[in-house]
């Protein structure tokens, strides 16, 4: 594929992004939102479009949309209007989609992102952000020559985010989308899972000579289901435009479908009819008002974005970039880190424990981090005890686990479960067993294979079930092995 940037042309990209809002129930009815449920099991009169059924707005969906609008620095419209977008499709039960049209929830936003090349920051203006309901799913390969319709997804809340055509390369499109995804995940607006369809991206692409301010004919590219596919599809399409222009041909204004298997975009057929969506205000819903209380609660000031938090973790705590990025990927994790770091002896240790032991515990217990009952001060105490040498790292980990499981303090766990470093006679006994039980290794050690010391330390640790301090064990082993 030719790289259009190498020519005196530039690529102009605008994105239309659909984001599924993280709610329990649908936008306008109480049906559960669940990916992968058996078909047509989460449906009711409203989302089936039964005659006489009426929509009622889900408060949480609106709050999440407001959060997204604030994160994108949008102008939030305290009064907006739902509109009907009319078209026929088997998975659109009412024959119209409830969306927003000339008075959307938010307009005129922006999001800065780290450019793919050169390390600078780019800015993408957000034209609008509006709330709407999703359609169902049409399956064309389920039965031969039939379309099968599943309406579980019909009515799931979405926001549509439309950017201005401010993006100048496929790589930047990817970088921008990455930043947007990170923000929306962080604010818990959406799962942003492209495979499950909770983040869907369509792109408008055109190319023009560098220096021109005119926009050329654009095409719309759809069906990109990962970040890398997005980048590939845009590069493909930009190159196609450029080739057409160079050979003196016209770019047709049309919709292209990306085929990830063949790595090419093809014009969509069978949609020759010009769309006329006949938007008009939805008479079943009064205007949408965002009360003061909601705005005060959600965004009197903008929440700290993950990249701001990342920078602060580097600046204030001296964390390595890797740690800062990982911790700031989730609000829960970052908050936990900061709480632990407040009373832990060293921020880097706190980071290690949060990234290591906390995530491991969550993984082992099969729980999300927010559901783990972690007492930050207790964890800081454990970290302190390890740092002071009163607990080995392994013992510290055991104490921490038991704290999560029982909700007890570090002191109580250590006392009740006798999770303390053993010394003196106990240690002596483990050292003796480790050495006397492995005469062959003793022989080799004495023959000069000093690296076998690690083996003996491991033996001691195992026998002590972690209660031995590795440093003390090492010292005791050297002495004991040297003695006889």
């Amino acid at each position: 594929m030719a790289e259009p940037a190498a020519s005196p042309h530039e690529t102009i990209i605008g994105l239309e992004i659909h984001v599924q809002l993280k709610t329990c129930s649908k936008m306008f009815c109480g049906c559960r939102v669940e990916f992968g449920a058996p078909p047509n099991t989460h449906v009711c009169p409203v989302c089936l479009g039964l005659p006489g059924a009426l929509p009622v707005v889900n408060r949480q969906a609106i709050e999440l949309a407001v959060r997204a609008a604030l994160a994108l620095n949008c102008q939030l419209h305290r009064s907006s209007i739902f509109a009907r977008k009319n078209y026929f499709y088997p998975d659109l039960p009412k024959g119209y989609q409830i969306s927003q049209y000339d008075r959307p929830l938010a307009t005129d936003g922006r999001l800065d992102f780290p450019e793919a090349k050169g390390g600078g920051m780019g800015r993408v203006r957000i034209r609008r952000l509006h709330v709407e309901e999703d359609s169902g799913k049409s399956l064309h390969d389920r039965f031969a020559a039939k379309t099968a319709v599943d309406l579980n997804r019909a009515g799931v809340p979405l926001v549509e985010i439309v950017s201005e055509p401010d993006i100048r390369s496929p790589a930047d499109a990817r970088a921008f989308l990455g930043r947007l995804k990170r923000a929306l995940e962080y604010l818990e607006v959406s799962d942003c899972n492209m495979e499950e369809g909770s983040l869907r991206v369509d792109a408008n692409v055109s190319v023009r000579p560098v220096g021109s301010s005119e926009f050329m004919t654009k095409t719309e590219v759809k069906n990109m289901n990962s970040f890398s596919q997005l980048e590939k599809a845009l590069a493909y399409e930009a190159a196609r435009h450029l080739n057409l222009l160079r050979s003196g041909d016209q770019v047709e204004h049309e919709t292209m479908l990306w085929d990830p298997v063949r790595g090419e975009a093809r014009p969509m057929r069978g949609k020759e009819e010009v769309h006329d969506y006949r938007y008009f205000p939805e008479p079943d819903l009064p205007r949408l008002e965002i009360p003061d209380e909601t705005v005060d609660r959600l965004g009197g000031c903008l929440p700290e974005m993950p990249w701001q938090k990342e920078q602060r973790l580097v600046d204030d705590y001296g964390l390595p970039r890797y740690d800062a990025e990982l911790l700031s990927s989730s609000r829960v994790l970052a908050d936990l880190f900061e709480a632990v770091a407040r009373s832990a002896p060293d921020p880097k240790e706190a980071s290690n424990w949060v990234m290591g032991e906390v995530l491991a515990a969550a993984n082992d217990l099969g729980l999300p981090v927010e559901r783990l009952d972690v007492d930050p001060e207790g964890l800081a105490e454990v970290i302190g005890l390890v740092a002071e040498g009163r607990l080995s790292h392994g013992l510290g980990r055991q104490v921490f686990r038991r704290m999560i499981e029982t909700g007890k303090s570090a002191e109580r766990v250590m006392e009740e479960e006798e999770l303390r470093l053993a010394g003196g006679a106990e240690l002596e006994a483990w050292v003796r067993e480790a050495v006397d039980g492995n005469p062959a290794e003793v022989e080799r050690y004495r023959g000069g294979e000093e690296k076998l010391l690690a083996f003996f330390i491991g033996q001691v640790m195992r026998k002590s079930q972690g209660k031995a301090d590795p440093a003390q064990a090492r010292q005791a082993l050297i002495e004991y092995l040297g003695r006889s």
Partner: protein
Amino acid sequence: MTIKRTDVEKVAALARLELDQAELDALTGDCGSILEFFEAIRDVDVEGATPAGALEHPAPVRDDQAEHDRLERPVAEMAPDWREGYFVLPRLPALDAESVDDDGEA
């Protein structure tokens, strides 16, 4: 305001209405005289009049709770064609090729 036969045809296509020739003729005539009758509304000075439609109260909102589906009868019973949990409708095999995106427009 007037409406031509081709307009009626176009609108019927947009509204997914199958009309035979006689129906199309009749509808063109009917709609023409109705639109002529509506013409009187052009005399009104609507300058400064805001479109009606907005109710006094804002849209009420409900809590985000998944409630039980309120159906007194299974969906299958009302569907004209139902297979393995899906609503089913015919589709020309020739159209199958274009199916990639047909996942709604939202």
